[in-house]
């Protein structure tokens, strides 16, 4: 249920800290210092109030499955690694994050399943990708 190494995301100055932290095994969120919104995906300006006064914070890395699907067809994904479990995980901080649930059979996942973050490698040793696994 995984595909390693993963494609390397496009790293920009805006998102570099997010990917660097992931390579260290940390999941970051953005927090607006003006309206207190904690949001995902990372952006330099707050999507609620457009403030540029935004800080990185460490997420707990735990959450629950909001929606999931085990997909049998993903272009470019090696067939032996299908089905792929794509999911929205609702982080304990609130944001829902599009991600994968790895190392589990599709029948083991449910809406509401408790999950925690883990990280998979990419072709770039300085970049890792946050994914989730079931908390057992």
């Amino acid at each position: 249920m995984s595909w390693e190494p993963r494609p390397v995301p496009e790293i920009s100055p805006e998102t570099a800290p997010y990917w660097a932290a992931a390579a260290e095994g940390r999941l970051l969120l953005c927090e607006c210092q003006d309206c207190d919104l904690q949001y995902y995906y990372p952006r330099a300006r707050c999507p609620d109030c457009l403030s540029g006064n935004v800080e990185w914070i460490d997420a707990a890395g735990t959450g629950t499955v909001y929606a999931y699907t085990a997909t049998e067809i993903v272009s470019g994904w090696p067939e032996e690694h299908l089905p792929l479990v794509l999911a929205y995980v609702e982080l304990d901080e609130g944001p829902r994050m599009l991600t994968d649930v790895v190392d589990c059979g599709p029948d083991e996942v449910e809406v509401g399943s408790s999950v925690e973050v883990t990280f998979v490698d990419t072709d770039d040793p300085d970049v890792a990708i946050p994914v989730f696994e079931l908390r057992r």
Partner: protein
Amino acid sequence: MTDDVDAYIAGAFEHPTREAPDKSIAQLHAEVAAGALEDAGLAKDDVDGYFTAGENYQVGRYPPLAMADYLGLDVSYFDSTDDGGSAYVNHVGEAAAAIAHGKCDVALVTLAGRMRTDDRDQPEHDDSILQENFERIYGAETLPVYALAARRHMHEYGTTSEQLAEIRAAASHHAQYNEHAMYREPVTVEEVVASRTVSDPLHLLDCCVVSDGAGAFVVVSDEVRRQLARECVAVLGHGAAIEHHDAGRVDLTRTAARDSGQRAFDRADVGPADVDYASIYDSFTITVLQTLEDLGFCEKGEGGSFVEDGALKAPHGTLPFNTDGGGLCSNHPDRGGMTKVIEAVRQLRGEANPEVQVPDAEVAIAHGTGGYLGTRHAGSTAVLGRVGR
């Protein structure tokens, strides 16, 4: 119903074949442009507005420039707003607005695509968007993100696979009468549910066809309409909306149709109860079910029971929909919004297949969904009305 009509659809044309291996994309645009103008009783030189969208690789980096050159158009207004499959329903509203502001009098809208026989790699994602870097790495493409929406709808409202299958069954009932439809064989609810699971809870028959094809329509001013020996269709109202991640508070059961529909109905001064026929974007069965709820044809969460027992079947169902067989069975030429407009025009002019023609259809809607329902998408709704001559 409003008397305040700025623009009318005077002609429409759909390319008849679902495979076009020997035709270029530009050639398909030109064929349907000629067909729609002939249907309206207009000539190419009458055109002073042009709208098209589409992938850059199809016709060149700047679609309206490439196609205006190819078609030899001399236009005073043009636009290529590209919100995916909803673009062509959006172009109805944009053309009407341009006409209302005196920017043009005869607006041509064209679409062409060769998703079926073009062997060129189809770019699944738009790399220019920051967000794509947080989706592609997870394998999040069209099919699974729609499946996420279906999953959440089932979880919150108890919607079943059988209820989604009702939508495909109704579309296939219509498609049997459309000689151009890609899949004409009627299918049952049981057959849909028994088809292969491609991204659970969606089955193969919950998904639209992949076809080549093309379509065009012509939007004209009232002054032009009065000169035409052709029944025209009034653009009564139009609305557009975008639904997105909402900073991570994405709600997968809510679609842009809620706001686009409200805006269109308000402008038209009609409501869902006044609609005789509905063209609903049908990339997947879940797209239809959620759109029906958000357009107000039933309460949120009750789409499943609304579509049961053939409610969507023409001509006698509660709400006849997609009487050409829709994207699910007939035609999805890269983007399906164009065919939504064309079949609504046919219904209002009484030119749909007699087996599925809704008697005395006076108000129709065409709704397009563009982008990805499970992450971010656009909704565009046009309310159209029959004009007595």
